[in-house]
């Protein structure tokens, strides 16, 4: 259970123009919660679902006239691995904290915030504790926005 984690790495090139395509690919990667390492490699924790998502994105990039390679990999050191896990956690914790802050500031727009929660949860690969707090707060909060 505590063996080295497997990571998916995506490298790609999209023609510079039209720039909308570059933005499109970038946005999809952000939606998946991928992290860009050293301005060159996009990383996601490996899973069936993530591998499928990246495989199809790579196909799309090729359709754009770009090039893409998808790899699975292990970090060569534990330190490097935990750094990566930390980077993923920080990303989602930050997004969750913003939701919490807004929940505590009435009136909270519960429908918008729960939608936002779902988006963040979809890329919460390491089960953030802040996420659990958001979930509890969303279930407790009533229309007036007072969560306690």
């Amino acid at each position: 259970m505590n063996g080295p984690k497997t990571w998916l790495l995506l490298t790609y090139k999209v023609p510079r123009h039209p720039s909308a395509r570059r933005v499109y690919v970038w946005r999809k990667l952000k939606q998946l919660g991928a992290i860009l390492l050293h301005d060159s490699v996009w990383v996601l924790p490996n899973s069936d679902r993530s591998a499928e998502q990246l495989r199809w994105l790579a196909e799309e990039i090729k359709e754009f006239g770009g090039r893409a390679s998808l790899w699975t990999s292990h970090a060569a050191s534990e330190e490097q691995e935990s750094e990566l896990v930390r980077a993923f956690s920080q990303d989602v914790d930050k997004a969750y904290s913003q939701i919490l802050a807004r929940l505590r500031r009435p009136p909270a727009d519960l429908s918008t915030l729960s939608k936002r929660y779902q988006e963040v949860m979809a890329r919460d690969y390491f089960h953030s504790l802040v996420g659990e707090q958001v979930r509890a707060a969303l279930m407790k909060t009533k229309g007036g926005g007072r969560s306690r």
Partner: protein
Amino acid sequence: MRWVTWEGIKVDRMACGWLIRRFIDPKAEFVFIPPGTRPLPKGAEPFDIPGVRLSHHRGHCSFHAMLKAYKLKDPVLSRMARIVDEADVVQEAAIEPAAPGLDFVCRGIRRTSPDDYVAMERGGMICDALYAELQARE
């Protein structure tokens, strides 16, 4: 006719299989091959395999490609195509509430099915149900 796709089917391949059997080729026979197998078996139409005709194009799922290729104009099927798009790959706009649930259920179906043939049957039942509900709301 024989139709071939990668094994370990999820929402898009289940929906495609259902579409084939119900609207394109009622006597369809499915062949499942390990992902990445090349060359593709002869005499079978490939679907939802990267790079083939009936596959993802321009961010749309293979189900969508099938509607286009076989000129199926049913508005209920078009709506299903959007749902499968959102269930299968992350889309910029999420407008179909059924999509995330459908993705979960289809993954679960594959987990609880002994093989892809059974998963295809069971996925077909889900698609029948989805189609009926969407049709009732048209």
